């Protein structure tokens, strides 16, 4: 990544009442990237986000946004941020539209046209003049997103944003995030409990546990580990197993249901395939088996539960 990061968290630490809640956390977020923020309940996701938007002060360390120190240049840096922190709480006694007018006035110069455009983007046109009181949770999430993108921020922070959205809504939301990341170069930071969802939505995942960042990885799979697991579906499992044992010695191989699970380097999979065929074993399928994020996560956090 040769671009400048939009957001830099430099060794941020937060102590509340003598308890260290966030411990020396550093993280860079880049334009055009969707970064997932994953961690068990109480890990410190919301606390980190609060510090990123200046709701809480850092005990030590520095939050930099768009090249400015948040602490010293609050208005310039926060102008580039759109956020939902925890639930998108709105003024229930006002309509969705009035809520947006309210936030537009706080942002500065935002035209009526821009408000209309955003309302359309989040799919709230038909209900925008209803009181928020009458909104469903999913509609409130949409309104929350609308207020966050009103001013076209370079950096979008979303804390548990899909909470309450229906499957179609989640899909739409995911596509929207991808779109603003790729087309507008927005850097998106999403915290979520739903691993599978983060996997679908993000380019990169930062994992936090007990206030410490324990891993930053790309969703494409960890490249550090060159060995991959491949699943072979073959006509004769036992024979195939024996062949692998004979030819590759110490390699990990296991029979899983009707398949053979073999841990190999990439180039070797072709070789294994060739040997099987030469030995008269039919090969029906070869599937590279990616460990699910969940498996990795549980491995990494020592099996701690994620909701």
């Amino acid at each position: 990544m040769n671009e400048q990061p939009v957001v830099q968290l430099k060794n941020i630490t937060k102590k509340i009442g003598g308890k260290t809640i966030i411990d020396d956390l550093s993280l860079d977020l880049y334009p055009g990237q969707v970064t997932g923020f994953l961690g068990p309940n109480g890990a410190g996701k919301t606390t980190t986000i609060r510090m990123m938007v200046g709701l809480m002060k850092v005990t030590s360390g520095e939050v930099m946004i768009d090249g400015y120190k948040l602490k010293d240049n609050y208005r310039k840096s926060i102008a580039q941020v759109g956020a939902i922190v925890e639930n998108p709480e709105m003024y229930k006694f006002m309509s969705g539209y009035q809520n947006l007018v309210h936030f537009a006035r706080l942002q500065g110069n935002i035209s009526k046209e821009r408000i209309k455009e955003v309302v359309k983007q989040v799919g709230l046109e038909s209900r925008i003049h209803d009181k928020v009181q009458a909104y469903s949770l999913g509609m409130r999430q949409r309104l929350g997103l609308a207020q966050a993108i009103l001013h076209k921020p370079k950096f979008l922070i979303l804390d548990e944003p899909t909470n309450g959205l229906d499957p179609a809504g989640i899909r739409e939301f995911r596509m929207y995030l991808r779109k603003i990341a790729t087309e507008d170069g927005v850097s998106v930071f999403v915290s979520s409990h739903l691993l599978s969802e983060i996997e679908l939505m993000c380019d990169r995942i930062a994992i936090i546990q007990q206030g410490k960042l324990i891993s930053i990885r790309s969703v494409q799979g960890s490249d550090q580990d060159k060995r991959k697991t491949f699943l072979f579906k073959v006509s004769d499992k036992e024979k195939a197993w024996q062949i692998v044992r004979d030819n590759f010695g110490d390699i990990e191989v296991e029979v899983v249901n009707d398949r053979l699970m073999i841990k190999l380097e990439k180039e070797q999979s072709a070789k294994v395939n060739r040997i099987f065929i030469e030995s008269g074993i039919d090969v029906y399928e070869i599937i590279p088996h990616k460990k699910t994020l969940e498996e990795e996560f549980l491995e990494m956090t020592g099996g701690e539960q994620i909701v």
Partner: protein
Amino acid sequence: MSEMIRLIRNEWMKIFKRNSTFILIAILIGAVFLFAFVSSWSSNQQSQTMPWEEQVSQQMSVYEQQEAQSENMHEKNYYQDQAAIARHRLENDIPPPQHTSFIQYLLDSKSNITFAVLFTVIIASGIVASEFAWGTIKLLTIRPVRRGKILWAKYITTLLFSLTLAIITYLGAIIGGLVFLEKGDGVLLTMVEDHIVEQSVWIESLRLYGLAFVNMIIMTSFAFMIGTLSRSNALAIGLSIFLMFTGQQLVFLFQEYTFVKFYLFTHTDLSQYLQPKPMIEGISPLFSVTVLMLYLFVFLLISHLSFTKRDIAT
């Protein structure tokens, strides 16, 4: 500046999009009209027992007696003026406003301001605290506007709201008076540099309402501070209303001690200087205004520091 106006419009919108605000205003108008109605009703009950000349000459002798017993210049001057005015009435055949008259009613109607203070205190307590209760404080403060400015917009809005309620109270009293009361006899007289002149009821009533408005500003600011500090609507309303009704009693309880001179509620009722004696000895209008300004400054400073420096962790 235009940013400040946008912020104030926001706060104003948030007050007036709530039904409860209209209920408060409706109750206020209802109370003001009720006061007018009751005034007219009780004035019809009272039959004039004594011609006014007799009343005034009785009062005059009381004033003269008290003038002789006065302990200080302020008190002496007061009774001297009152006695002179009474004499002037008798000599020139100018009756005082009757109890049943519109003039007396309008002057008495300033007590309605208590309702306006009560309702402004409710709004002032909630204007910051409610944002915390609703959770909207987060979306409100993560904007390219300094937190302090948001707070000032809220404070200015609160003052505008209290002014609005004060005006409603005053205009409501006038309208209620025109509807329910007869104009009645009598003229207000006052002493201006040794001359006795006629005083317009409008000027006199505005003066009373104006002094009551000072008290309103202080109570509003107090409630605003408690709401900002505690982030709890209920606590701010409760404490402010409690002090509103008990604060002045404590003046009499503490009158032996010197610190009572610096106690807030010794000074909140500035109309005490229209009386022969202020609540305690040794205070003057200038002193009271200075003390009130100091309190106001401290209230706002505490609110500002609390709002701008503390973490938002709801």
